[in-house]
C-alpha cells in the first residue's frame, strides 16, 4: 500500500466519532494545560495516563498527542495576555507578545500565534508522514549493540542540551538508570531491591513516578508562594492580523517551521530550544533588529511556528526508533507501552492503523485548535481567573485517585508522594529532571540490549565500536561529552539554561 492508501485507512479510523471526540478532548485539555501556568504538558499527560487504561489504544494515543501539540497552542495565550508563559516553550513569546498586548494589539498577537502554530503544525505532520517511514526502514538494520548505543546517545544529547552542570546531569541520568533496574530481572527472574514489596516486582511504576516527579513536585513548588498576576483587562478584539502583519510574519513562520521540525527530531527539550533559536535567527536576519522586544509581530510568529513544528518533529524518533527525545515524549512512550504497543522500527509496519490514524488525527487536531483558539480566547482568559488556591487541590485529587485507580494500591500512592518529594528536592537543588525521566524509561531496554550485546560478543566490549552504526552513535556521544568540558561551550550551556 502506498502513502495515500495508508492515509485513507488512517482517516477512516481518525474520523470515527469516538476518535474525533478523543482528539477534541486532547486538544482542549492541551490548550487548557498550556494556558494554566503551573501545569505542563508532561504532568497533564501523566495525569491522564490512568484514565487512558479505560480507553482503546488508538483513541488514547490520539488524545495524548493532542494534549502535547495543544499545549503549544495554549501556552502562547498566557504569554501574550498575562506575561506568564503557560509552559516553557512559550517563554520567548512573552517578549514581543506581551508588549503587543500592552499596545492594544493583543488580538493580532494571539491571531498570528494561532495561525503560525496551525501552519507549522500542518507542515510538521506532512514532515512526519514523509520522514518517518524511510527512517523506520533504516532502523531495521539495528541490533542490540546499535540500540544500546543509540539510547546512550539519546541520554548524552539530552544531558548536553539540558543545563549548566554536566556532572549533575550525568548523576541524575545514572540515578534514573539505577531506578530502572529495581524489580524482577527479565533475563534471570531475580528480584532486585524490591524488599518483598509486591508492587515493585514489575519495577517502579512509571505512572506514579512521573506523576510524582512532574505533577506533585510542580504543585509543591507553586504553593511556596502566592503569585499575583495582572491580566490585560481590555477586551481582546480584532484577532485577524492585517495584511502588513501577514507580510512581515510569513517567512519567519516558514523558517521557524523548518528550523523547529529539525530541532524536534533531535533529542532534547526541542520546543523550548526551537523558540530561542527561531527568535535569535529572526533577529539576526531582520533589517530592523531594534524592533524586537518592543512588540514586533515577527518575534511572536517565528517562535510560535517553531515550537509547534518541533513538537511534530519530536514524534519521529518515537515512532521510528522507540526512543523519546524529551520528557513529554517519554511519558507518551509510557502510554504506548501500557497499551502493549512497542514503538520502534517495526511499529509503522506492525501497527499502520495506529500510526496513520494518529497522523490524520494530528492534522484534524490542528484544524480543531485553529477553530478553538480564536473564538474561545475570551473563555481562556476567564479560566485564568480561577484562583490557584482552588485549582491545586483539584489537581492533587486527580493525581491521588488516578494513581490509585491503576492497581488499587496504596503503595503506589506512597511511591507517587515519594517521587513528588524527590522531584521537589531536585528542583530546589537545581538538578534537571529530563535526564532522570529519560533514563528511567530507557533503562530496562538499555540494560537488556547491553547484556545481550555482551553475551553475543562473548564479553567483548569493543562490539559497540566495531559495528559501524553503533560506532557513529558512540563517537557522537563521546564528542558531545568532550566538547561540553571545553570552557567556552560550558559557558554557552550555562547561558542556555
Amino acid at each position, binding site marked *: 500500500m502506498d502513502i495515500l492508501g495508508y492515509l485513507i485507512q488512517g482517516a477512516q479510523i481518525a474520523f470515527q466519532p469516538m476518535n474525533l471526540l478523543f482528539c477534541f478532548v486532547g486538544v482542549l485539555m492541551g490548550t487548557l494545560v498550556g494556558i494554566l501556568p503551573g501545569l505542563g504538558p508532561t504532568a497533564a499527560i501523566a495525569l491522564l495516563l490512568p484514565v487512558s487504561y479505560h480507553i482503546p489504544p488508538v483513541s488514547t494515543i490520539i488524545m495524548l498527542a493532542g494534549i502535547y501539540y495543544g499545549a503549544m497552542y495554549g501556552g502562547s495565550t498566557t504569554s501574550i495576555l498575562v506575561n506568564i508563559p503557560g509552559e516553557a516553550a512559550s517563554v520567548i513569546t512573552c517578549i514581543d507578545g506581551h508588549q503587543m498586548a500592552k499596545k492594544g494589539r493583543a488580538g493580532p498577537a494571539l491571531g498570528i500565534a494561532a495561525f503560525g502554530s496551525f501552519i507549522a503544525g500542518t507542515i510538521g505532520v506532512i514532515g512526519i508522514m514523509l520522514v518517518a517511514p524511510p527512517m523506520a526502514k533504516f532502523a531495521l538494520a539495528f541490533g542490540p549493540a546499535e540500540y544500546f548505543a543509540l539510547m546512550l546517545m539519546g541520554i548524552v544529547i539530552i544531558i548536553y542540551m539540558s543545563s549548566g552542570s554536566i556532572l*549533575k546531569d550525568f548523576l541524575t541520568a545514572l540515578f534514573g538508570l*539505577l531506578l530502572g533496574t529495581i524489580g524482577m530481572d527479565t533475563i534471570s527472574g*531475580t528480584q532486585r531491591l524490591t524488599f518483598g514489596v509486591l508492587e515493585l516486582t514489575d519495577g517502579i511504576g512509571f505512572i506514579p513516578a512521573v506523576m510524582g516527579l512532574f505533577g506533585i513536585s510542580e504543585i509543591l513548588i507553586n504553593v511556596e508562594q502566592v503569585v499575583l498576576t495582572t491580566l490585560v483587562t481590555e477586551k481582546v478584539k480584532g484577532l485577524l492580523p492585517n495584511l502588513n502583519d501577514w507580510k512581515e510574519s510569513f517567512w519567519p513562520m516558514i523558517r521557524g517551521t523548518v528550523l523547529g521540525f529539525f530541532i524536534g527530531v533531535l533529542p532534547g527539550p526541542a520546543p523550548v530550544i526551537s523558540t530561542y533559536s527561531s527568535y535569535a535567527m529572526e533577529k539576526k536576519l531582520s533589517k530592523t533588529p531594534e524592533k524586537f522586544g518592543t512588540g514586533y509581530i515577527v518575534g511572536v510568529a517565528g517562535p510560535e511556528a517553531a515550537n509547534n513544528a518541533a513538537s511534530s518533529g519530536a514524534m519521529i524518533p518515537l515512532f521510528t526508533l522507540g526512543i523519546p527525545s524529551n520528557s513529554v515524549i517519554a511519558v507518551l512512550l509510557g502510554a504506548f507501552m501500557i497499551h502493549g504497543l512497542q514503538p520502534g522500527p517495526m511499529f509503522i509496519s506492525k501497527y499502520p492503523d495506529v500510526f496513520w490514524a494518529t497522523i490524520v488525527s494530528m492534522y484534524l487536531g490542528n484544524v480543531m485548535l485553529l477553530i478553538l483558539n480564536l473564538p474561545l480566547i475570551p473563555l481562556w482568559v476567564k479560566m485564568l481567573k480561577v*484562583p*490557584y*488556591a482552588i485549582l491545586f*487541590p483539584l489537581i492533587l485529587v486527580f493525581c491521588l485517585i488516578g494513581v490509585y485507580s491503576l492497581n488499587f494500591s496504596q503503595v503506589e500512592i506512597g511511591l507517587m*508522594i515519594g517521587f513528588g518529594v524527590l522531584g521537589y528536592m531536585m528542583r530546589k*537543588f537545581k538538578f534537571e529532571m529530563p535526564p532522570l525521566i529519560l533514563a528511567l524509561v530507557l533503562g530496562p531496554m538499555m540494560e537488556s540490549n547491553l547484556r545481550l550485546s555482551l553475551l553475543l560478543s562473548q564479553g*567483548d566490549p569493543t562490539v559497540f565500536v566495531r559495528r559501524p552504526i553503533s560506532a557513529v552513535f558512540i563517537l557522537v556521544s563521546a564528542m558531545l561529552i568532550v566538547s561540553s568540558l571545553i570552557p567556552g561551550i560550558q559557558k554557552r550551556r550555562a547561558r542556555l539554561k
Partner: protein
Amino acid sequence: MKRNDLIGGLFFLGVGLLFTLYSHRVEIGTWDEPGPGFLPFWAGMVVIGMSVLLIGKSLSRGGGTTEAFFPQSDSWKRVVFTLLALVGYNFLLKPLGFVLVTFFFVGFLVKFIFPGSWKKAFIAALLSTVSVRLIFVNLLEINFPKGFLGF
C-alpha cells in the same frame, strides 16, 4: 550553589553505595555473561565516583552566595501541610472511604494553604467531591474504598 551540590552529592553517594553493595547479593556476573547485578554494580560505581567529584568540587569552591531554601518565611508551612495532607489522604482512604477523605482533603487545602473562608472551602470540597465521584465512579466505574459509612 555550594550547599545544594554538597547535599545532592551526599544523596547520590548514598544511592551509589546502596546499589553497588546490593548488586553483590544478586550476582554481578562477568563481561561475557553479565548477571542481574551487572548494570547496578557498574552504574553504581560510576555514581559513587561522580558524587565524590561533586562533593569535592562543592567543598573546594569558597564563598558564593547561598540562596534561601524557601522564597517566603511561611513557604515551608504550605509545603509541609500539603505533603501531610497527601500522606493523610493515603492513610485515611480505606478507613474513611473515598468520598469523605476527598471532601476533607480539598476542604483542608482550600481553607488552610492559601487561607480562604470556611464557606469557600466547603463549596469547593463539595463540588469537587461530587464531580470526581461522578467521573470516576459513575462514568469510569472504578471501585474505590467505601469506608465505615458505606459510601
